[in-house]
């Protein structure tokens, strides 16, 4: 995963969400992401992949940034431009070391640790860093739209 200074892309805002880092809120969040992906013209397969990537990103925040406490906020910004959908997940947990967000090798057959691998393989770009304000961790992902649509 590329470690980058996160900047706001030139794009149209579709949704700006703030929700608690609780597992029982994720189905509702996924429904909203699904709607946004469809609005951007993604087919069912592309929509599934975007929803899964966002779900995995939020799962990482719940488990690692907030260590399952459920009391921290997650911000999810969804934007689009002519080419792509852009999704930005922000948390306000302690700074996360870049090495902590690298995917593990698939040959290690063991439960867990696949989330970051999924995100990297489902999306076209993934950048991880501190927010522009310096407070919080940001994962910004994008996926190209199907040019035939």
């Amino acid at each position, binding site marked *: 995963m590329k470690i980058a200074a996160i900047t706001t892309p030139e794009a149209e805002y579709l949704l700006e969400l703030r929700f608690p880092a609780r*597992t*029982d809120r*994720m*189905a509702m969040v*996924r429904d909203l992401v699904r709607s946004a992906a469809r609005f951007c013209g993604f087919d069912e*397969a592309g929509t*599934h*992949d975007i*929803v*899964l990537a966002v*779900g*995995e990103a939020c*799962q990482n925040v*719940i*488990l690692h940034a907030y260590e399952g406490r459920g009391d921290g906020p997650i911000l999810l910004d969804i934007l689009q431009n002519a080419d792509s959908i852009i999704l930005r997940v922000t948390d306000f947990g302690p700074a996360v070391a870049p090495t902590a967000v690298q995917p593990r090798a*698939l040959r290690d*057959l*063991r*439960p*867990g*640790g*696949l*989330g970051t*691998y*999924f995100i990297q*393989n*489902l999306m076209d770009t993934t950048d991880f860093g501190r927010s522009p304000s310096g407070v919080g961790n940001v994962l910004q992902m994008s996926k190209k739209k199907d040019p035939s649509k």
Partner: protein
Amino acid sequence: MSEAVREVNGNLVVSLTGEIDLDRAPEARRLLLDCVKRSKDVLVDLSAVTYIDSSGIASLVEALQWAKQRGTDLCLVAVSPQALRVFELARLDKVFAIHPDLDAALAGEN
């Protein structure tokens, strides 16, 4: 997610349904490990799974490892397209035996 367990020809058939995410995976994990502990072969029907993420996959991998340690089989049956996409992404479609339906699983056919 709701689930059901039934016995068919000496095998345990577990049907998982709905969305298996971080919220529901612990429930699926308990159910799967309880089945594996009964030392019968376990067939996991995923035909009605509409979403599964890495936490759900982790429950199945753990159950498979428990089954192998006990000398029993755990295989997947009628995997929904959404779930199959995730297994393929993790290249676990080569690790789990996947059968198109229950009859094929009982006959040991891929």
